[in-house]
């Protein structure tokens, strides 16, 4: 748990389930050949099918089904036969007055997601559905309930989605965040979505409730919508949980509803009252035939899956002693292959990983080959380069390529001979007798201050090339 994890009063436990809508990165929409691409020019990617014009018929995009099954298998789900269903509702974001989705027979069920710290969150289902159009509410400050009228853009209507529904297994905000990050990493690894929360290609709704610690009951939950970032999700969950606790403490209870997260105001407000599932009058979509993947289809999908982030982190963890944060970052950036090869080439594993985490936070590190990285790390661990020098050389290597030895000598980073350094220290002591006395006979605070002074002077004299540890040792030896 991070030190900033907000906590509920001790006697309450947070219970969260997440529903994540993932836009699949197909070229076309789910049921028609309109482009699946973000366009600022409204209603340009529309046709009779996605406008629900009479007489039009949907035809399933095979690629979308492949992607959905791939995601299902990556989440450890059973992937089996499924059927599409109509979810009927009256709202102008779907011109058909229903959304084509999956109901009682979803494509993927019963999986799990392993978080970076090893915690496991159950996946209830991951079903295929189409996205709705985008409505803009005009008047009354853009709030849905006060709108004078609404404008509708159907470019997004019919875009293929997979909705991933977790079980209510999440107990902390950190785990909620880790869940979203892990899901995003998996989506990127299996290349079915660009998974950009800020652009809406990954949208998170959070079902939040609280219960007394020790209880196993599931109390009334509220579904939070309009969450635009992982950070915003954390704030929204925290606010909502506290709201529930306050209600219970004052003898009231929350009611089951959808609530709208207001990021600027830092609060949630009631949205549409949650219609019962029955009110959607789900029924099987008569215009689409069932999806029946064979065992061979599923096996082919399994064979096409890359090594997933959790397994990649585990591989690095086996070789090193760094913390889960470092592993996550390196795997997230896709630098784990580079790290493994550099470690294989003999470089110190912890050093490789921490250098990558701290100093290679860039999109393009193609100049950095495993042998070159390994060579640099070896120069650092052997003392040929100080930490500061290694950092600078690495930065040059990432920027323009080249081997560390050449870059180091080009920058004048020759390893400083220890007698050379000692000479410098002696000279400084001679030049600054008062400071030296304060160093040798002052109290702890004074000694620290003077050590800082001498170290600073030596760094200045050597353009930062001296090794801080060596200086400290020399000062201590001479002062004793």
């Amino acid at each position, binding site marked *: 748990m991070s030190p900033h994890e907000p906590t509920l009063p001790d006697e309450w436990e947070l219970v969260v389930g997440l529903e994540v809508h993932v836009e699949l990165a197909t*070229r076309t929409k789910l049921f028609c050949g309109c482009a699946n691409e973000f366009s600022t020019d409204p*209603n340009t990617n*529309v046709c009779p099918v996605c406008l629900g014009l009479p007489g039009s018929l949907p035809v399933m995009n095979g690629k979308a089904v492949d992607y959905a099954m791939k995601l299902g298998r990556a989440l450890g789900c059973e992937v089996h036969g499924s059927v599409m269903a109509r979810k009927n509702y009256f*709202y*102008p974001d779907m011109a058909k007055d229903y959304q084509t989705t999956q109901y009682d027979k979803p494509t993927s069920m019963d999986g799990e997601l392993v978080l970076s710290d090893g915690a496991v969150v159950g996946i209830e289902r991951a079903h295929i559905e189409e996205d709705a159009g985008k409505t803009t509410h005009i008047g009354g400050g853009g709030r849905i309930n006060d709108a004078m*009228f609404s404008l509708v*853009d159907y470019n997004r209507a019919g875009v293929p989605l997979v909705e991933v529904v977790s079980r209510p297994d999440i107990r902390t905000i950190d785990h909620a965040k880790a869940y979203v990050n892990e899901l995003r990493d998996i989506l990127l690894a299996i290349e079915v979505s660009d998974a950009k929360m800020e652009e809406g290609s990954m949208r998170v709704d959070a079902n939040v409730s609280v219960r007394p610690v020790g209880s196993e009951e599931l109390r009334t939950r509220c579904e939070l919508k309009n969450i635009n970032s992982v950070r915003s999700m954390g704030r929204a969950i925290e606010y909502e949980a506290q709201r529930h606790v306050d209600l219970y403490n004052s003898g009231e209870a929350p009611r089951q509803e959808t609530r709208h997260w207001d990021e600027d105001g830092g609060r949630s407000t009631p949205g549409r009252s949650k219609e019962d599932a029955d009110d959607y009058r789900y029924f099987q979509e008569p215009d689409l*035939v069932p999806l029946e993947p064979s065992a061979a289809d599923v096996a082919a999908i399994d064979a096409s899956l890359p090594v997933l982030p959790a397994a990649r982190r585990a591989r690095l963890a086996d070789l090193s002693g760094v913390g889960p944060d470092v592993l996550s970052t390196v795997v997230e950036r896709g630098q784990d292959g580079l790290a493994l090869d550099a470690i294989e080439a003999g470089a110190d594993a912890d050093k490789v990983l921490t250098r990558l985490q701290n100093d290679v936070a860039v999109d393009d590190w193609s100049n950095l080959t495993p042998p070159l990285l390994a060579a640099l790390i070896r120069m650092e661990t052997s003392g040929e380069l100080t930490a500061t020098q290694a950092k600078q050389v690495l930065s040059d290597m990432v920027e323009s390529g080249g081997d560390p030895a050449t870059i180091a000598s080009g920058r004048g980073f020759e390893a400083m001979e220890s007698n050379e350094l000692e000479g410098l220290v002696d000279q400084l002591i001679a030049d600054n007798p008062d400071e030296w006395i304060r160093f040798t006979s002052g109290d702890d605070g004074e000694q620290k201050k003077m050590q800082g002074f001498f170290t600073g002077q030596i760094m200045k004299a050597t353009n930062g090339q001296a090794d801080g540890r060596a200086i400290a040792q020399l000062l201590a030896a001479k002062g004793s």
Partner: protein
Amino acid sequence: MSERITRDEVIHVARLARLDLSDAEIDEFAHQMSDILDHAADIEALDVGDIEPTSHPLPMVNVFRADERRPSLDRDEVLGVAPAEQDGQFRVPPILGEER
């Protein structure tokens, strides 16, 4: 004859559909909807224990199209048939104002 659908249920469904029904219409639809359910009950009474449930009338599965673009419609043509438009978009009444 006892009605399978109550007036309250008609009012509930009408609200979901944003329909404003008169008292007479509520009675009329309650009656009609009950008749439909009576018909369904007749079918339900049949013994179909040995018959596989039909998820689709056609004996087909896995009908897919390739993920290839096809031309979309011209926007002016699309919005030309809309009751109201503004800024290249469909303009519709605020639907949810009643649900606070």
